[in-house]
Protein backbone atom coordinates (compact mmCIF):
# COMPACT_ATOMS: atom_id res chain seq x y z
CA UNK A 1 0.00 0.00 0.00
CA UNK A 2 2.98 2.29 0.55
CA UNK A 3 3.42 2.66 -3.21
CA UNK A 4 -0.06 4.11 -3.81
CA UNK A 5 1.31 7.65 -3.66
CA UNK A 6 4.19 6.85 -6.03
CA UNK A 7 1.92 5.13 -8.53
CA UNK A 8 -0.59 8.00 -8.44
CA UNK A 9 2.14 10.61 -8.96
CA UNK A 10 3.63 8.60 -11.84
CA UNK A 11 0.17 8.28 -13.40
CA UNK A 12 -0.47 12.02 -13.17
CA UNK A 13 2.93 12.76 -14.73
CA UNK A 14 2.26 10.33 -17.58
CA UNK A 15 -1.19 11.81 -18.31
CA UNK A 16 0.02 15.43 -18.10
CA UNK A 17 3.07 14.71 -20.28
CA UNK A 18 0.92 13.00 -22.92
CA UNK A 19 -1.46 15.96 -22.86
CA UNK A 20 1.46 18.39 -23.24
CA UNK A 21 2.47 16.58 -26.42
CA UNK A 22 -1.09 16.20 -27.75
CA UNK A 23 -2.07 19.87 -27.35
CA UNK A 24 -0.92 21.76 -30.45
CA UNK A 25 -1.39 25.48 -29.69
CA UNK A 26 1.80 26.77 -27.96
CA UNK A 27 -0.04 29.09 -25.54
CA UNK A 28 -2.27 26.24 -24.31
CA UNK A 29 0.72 23.94 -24.31
CA UNK A 30 2.46 26.32 -21.88
CA UNK A 31 -0.48 25.87 -19.48
CA UNK A 32 -0.30 22.07 -19.69
CA UNK A 33 3.47 22.32 -19.20
CA UNK A 34 2.97 24.27 -15.96
CA UNK A 35 0.64 21.56 -14.62
CA UNK A 36 3.09 18.87 -15.78
CA UNK A 37 5.73 20.71 -13.76
CA UNK A 38 3.54 20.57 -10.66
CA UNK A 39 2.96 16.83 -11.15
CA UNK A 40 6.70 16.26 -11.58
CA UNK A 41 7.42 18.23 -8.40
CA UNK A 42 5.04 15.95 -6.47
CA UNK A 43 6.69 12.86 -7.98
CA UNK A 44 10.18 14.08 -7.05
CA UNK A 45 9.05 14.84 -3.50
CA UNK A 46 7.41 11.43 -3.13
CA UNK A 47 10.68 9.85 -4.30
CA UNK A 48 12.51 11.89 -1.60
CA UNK A 49 14.28 14.26 -3.97
CA UNK A 50 13.15 17.66 -2.67
CA UNK A 51 16.11 19.53 -4.19
CA UNK A 52 15.08 18.45 -7.68
CA UNK A 53 11.44 19.22 -6.90
CA UNK A 54 12.41 22.72 -5.80
CA UNK A 55 14.36 23.30 -9.04
CA UNK A 56 11.32 22.13 -10.99
CA UNK A 57 9.00 24.46 -9.08
CA UNK A 58 11.35 27.45 -9.35
CA UNK A 59 11.81 27.10 -13.11
CA UNK A 60 8.45 25.63 -14.08
CA UNK A 61 5.94 27.83 -12.28
CA UNK A 62 6.73 31.30 -13.64
CA UNK A 63 9.95 31.38 -15.68
CA UNK A 64 9.15 28.82 -18.39
CA UNK A 65 5.60 30.16 -18.98
CA UNK A 66 7.00 33.68 -19.29
CA UNK A 67 9.64 32.62 -21.83
CA UNK A 68 7.14 30.62 -23.91
CA UNK A 69 4.40 33.26 -23.88
CA UNK A 70 6.84 36.07 -24.73
CA UNK A 71 8.01 34.04 -27.73
CA UNK A 72 4.39 33.42 -28.75
CA UNK A 73 3.63 37.14 -28.46
CA UNK A 74 6.65 38.05 -30.59
CA UNK A 75 5.63 35.61 -33.32
CA UNK A 76 1.99 36.74 -33.27
CA UNK A 77 2.97 40.41 -33.36
CA UNK A 78 5.19 39.87 -36.36
CA UNK A 79 2.35 37.99 -38.11
CA UNK A 80 -0.13 40.78 -37.37
CA UNK A 81 2.23 43.47 -38.67
CA UNK A 82 2.87 41.63 -41.88
CA UNK A 83 -0.86 41.02 -42.41
CA UNK A 84 -1.56 44.70 -41.77
CA UNK A 85 1.12 45.84 -44.19
CA UNK A 86 -0.33 43.94 -47.10
Amino acid at each position, binding site marked *: MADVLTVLALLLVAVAAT*AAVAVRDPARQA*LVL*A*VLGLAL*AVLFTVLQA*PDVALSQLAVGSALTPLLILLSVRKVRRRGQREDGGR
Partner: protein
Amino acid sequence: MNGWLWTATVLLAVGFGPVVWAVATGPVGRRVVAQNFGTSAVCLVMLLLAQGYQRPSYTDLALVLAVLGPVGTLVYARLLADDLSPHPPHTNLLTAAAALATTAVVVAVCAATGPGRAMVKLLVTGALLVAGNVIASRAVSGGYRNAEATSHG
Protein backbone atom coordinates in the same frame (compact mmCIF):
# COMPACT_ATOMS: atom_id res chain seq x y z
CA MET B 1 1.68 5.10 5.27
CA ASN B 2 0.24 7.39 7.93
CA GLY B 3 -2.85 9.59 7.91
CA TRP B 4 -1.01 12.61 6.52
CA LEU B 5 0.20 10.66 3.51
CA TRP B 6 -3.25 9.18 2.93
CA THR B 7 -4.76 12.67 3.05
CA ALA B 8 -2.10 13.82 0.57
CA THR B 9 -2.96 10.90 -1.73
CA VAL B 10 -6.68 11.68 -1.62
CA LEU B 11 -6.06 15.40 -2.19
CA LEU B 12 -3.76 14.59 -5.11
CA ALA B 13 -6.38 12.32 -6.69
CA VAL B 14 -9.46 14.45 -6.00
CA GLY B 15 -7.92 17.93 -6.21
CA PHE B 16 -5.13 17.60 -8.77
CA GLY B 17 -6.46 14.80 -10.99
CA PRO B 18 -9.32 16.95 -12.39
CA VAL B 19 -6.83 19.82 -12.85
CA VAL B 20 -4.77 17.72 -15.28
CA TRP B 21 -7.92 16.93 -17.24
CA ALA B 22 -9.25 20.51 -17.18
CA VAL B 23 -5.95 22.04 -18.31
CA ALA B 24 -5.71 19.70 -21.28
CA THR B 25 -9.19 20.41 -22.72
CA GLY B 26 -11.61 23.25 -23.27
CA PRO B 27 -11.26 27.03 -23.68
CA VAL B 28 -8.20 28.98 -22.52
CA GLY B 29 -10.10 30.57 -19.61
CA ARG B 30 -10.87 27.22 -18.04
CA ARG B 31 -7.29 26.08 -18.50
CA VAL B 32 -5.88 29.11 -16.68
CA VAL B 33 -8.35 28.58 -13.83
CA ALA B 34 -7.26 24.93 -13.64
CA GLN B 35 -3.59 25.92 -13.50
CA ASN B 36 -4.34 28.38 -10.69
CA PHE B 37 -6.24 25.77 -8.69
CA GLY B 38 -3.48 23.23 -9.35
CA THR B 39 -0.98 25.49 -7.58
CA SER B 40 -3.12 25.48 -4.44
CA ALA B 41 -3.72 21.74 -4.55
CA VAL B 42 -0.05 20.85 -5.00
CA CYS B 43 1.04 23.37 -2.35
CA LEU B 44 -1.26 21.68 0.18
CA VAL B 45 -0.03 18.24 -0.94
CA MET B 46 3.54 19.43 -0.25
CA LEU B 47 2.58 20.59 3.27
CA LEU B 48 0.92 17.23 3.97
CA LEU B 49 3.90 15.30 2.57
CA ALA B 50 6.33 17.30 4.73
CA GLN B 51 4.26 16.38 7.76
CA GLY B 52 3.78 12.78 6.65
CA TYR B 53 7.49 12.16 6.05
CA GLN B 54 8.42 14.03 9.27
CA ARG B 55 10.67 16.36 7.25
CA PRO B 56 9.99 19.98 8.31
CA SER B 57 12.45 21.27 5.70
CA TYR B 58 10.18 20.01 2.90
CA THR B 59 7.83 22.92 3.73
CA ASP B 60 10.25 25.13 1.75
CA LEU B 61 8.73 23.56 -1.36
CA ALA B 62 5.27 24.75 -0.35
CA LEU B 63 6.64 28.20 0.50
CA VAL B 64 8.33 28.64 -2.89
CA LEU B 65 5.22 27.36 -4.67
CA ALA B 66 2.97 29.72 -2.69
CA VAL B 67 5.20 32.61 -3.82
CA LEU B 68 5.76 31.64 -7.46
CA GLY B 69 2.57 29.76 -8.39
CA PRO B 70 0.28 32.82 -8.39
CA VAL B 71 3.00 34.77 -10.23
CA GLY B 72 2.80 32.13 -12.96
CA THR B 73 -0.97 32.55 -13.18
CA LEU B 74 -0.51 36.33 -13.43
CA VAL B 75 1.88 35.74 -16.34
CA TYR B 76 -0.87 33.83 -18.17
CA ALA B 77 -3.50 36.41 -17.25
CA ARG B 78 -1.25 39.18 -18.55
CA LEU B 79 -0.01 37.65 -21.77
CA LEU B 80 -3.19 35.78 -22.72
CA ALA B 81 -5.41 38.78 -21.89
CA ASP B 82 -6.85 38.96 -25.42
CA ASP B 83 -7.88 35.29 -25.28
CA LEU B 84 -9.39 35.71 -21.82
CA SER B 85 -11.21 39.04 -22.12
CA PRO B 86 -14.11 37.95 -24.42
CA HIS B 87 -15.32 35.32 -21.93
CA PRO B 88 -13.69 35.99 -18.55
CA PRO B 89 -14.07 32.86 -16.41
CA HIS B 90 -15.84 33.20 -13.06
CA THR B 91 -14.03 31.43 -10.29
CA ASN B 92 -15.60 32.56 -7.02
CA LEU B 93 -16.68 29.07 -5.97
CA LEU B 94 -13.35 27.45 -6.79
CA THR B 95 -11.41 30.25 -5.06
CA ALA B 96 -13.55 29.82 -1.94
CA ALA B 97 -12.99 26.05 -2.00
CA ALA B 98 -9.21 26.54 -2.31
CA ALA B 99 -9.17 29.05 0.56
CA LEU B 100 -11.22 26.70 2.73
CA ALA B 101 -9.00 23.71 1.98
CA THR B 102 -5.87 25.79 2.62
CA THR B 103 -7.21 26.93 5.99
CA ALA B 104 -8.12 23.37 6.99
CA VAL B 105 -4.74 21.88 6.02
CA VAL B 106 -2.67 24.70 7.52
CA VAL B 107 -4.59 24.56 10.81
CA ALA B 108 -4.18 20.78 10.99
CA VAL B 109 -0.46 20.87 10.21
CA CYS B 110 0.05 23.77 12.64
CA ALA B 111 -1.70 21.83 15.39
CA ALA B 112 0.63 18.89 14.77
CA THR B 113 3.73 21.11 14.67
CA GLY B 114 3.14 23.13 17.81
CA PRO B 115 4.16 26.73 18.40
CA GLY B 116 7.52 27.95 17.18
CA ARG B 117 9.30 29.21 14.09
CA ALA B 118 8.11 26.26 12.02
CA MET B 119 4.50 27.24 12.76
CA VAL B 120 5.13 30.84 11.67
CA LYS B 121 6.50 29.54 8.38
CA LEU B 122 3.41 27.38 7.88
CA LEU B 123 1.09 30.32 8.61
CA VAL B 124 3.03 32.59 6.21
CA THR B 125 2.85 29.93 3.51
CA GLY B 126 -0.90 29.55 4.01
CA ALA B 127 -1.51 33.30 3.97
CA LEU B 128 0.61 33.78 0.81
CA LEU B 129 -1.21 30.91 -0.88
CA VAL B 130 -4.71 32.23 -0.13
CA ALA B 131 -3.80 35.82 -1.06
CA GLY B 132 -2.08 34.69 -4.24
CA ASN B 133 -5.00 32.49 -5.26
CA VAL B 134 -7.55 35.27 -4.71
CA ILE B 135 -5.51 37.87 -6.62
CA ALA B 136 -4.68 35.48 -9.45
CA SER B 137 -8.39 34.59 -9.81
CA ARG B 138 -9.20 38.29 -9.88
CA ALA B 139 -6.56 38.88 -12.57
CA VAL B 140 -7.85 35.99 -14.70
CA SER B 141 -11.44 37.30 -14.62
CA GLY B 142 -10.58 40.76 -15.91
CA GLY B 143 -7.49 42.10 -14.14
CA TYR B 144 -5.85 43.18 -17.38
CA ARG B 145 -8.77 44.83 -19.15
CA ASN B 146 -8.00 46.19 -22.59
CA ALA B 147 -4.40 45.19 -22.08
CA GLU B 148 -4.08 44.15 -25.72
CA ALA B 149 -5.80 47.27 -27.06
CA THR B 150 -3.15 49.56 -25.58
CA SER B 151 -0.03 47.43 -25.81
CA HIS B 152 0.44 47.88 -29.54
CA GLY B 153 0.31 51.68 -29.31
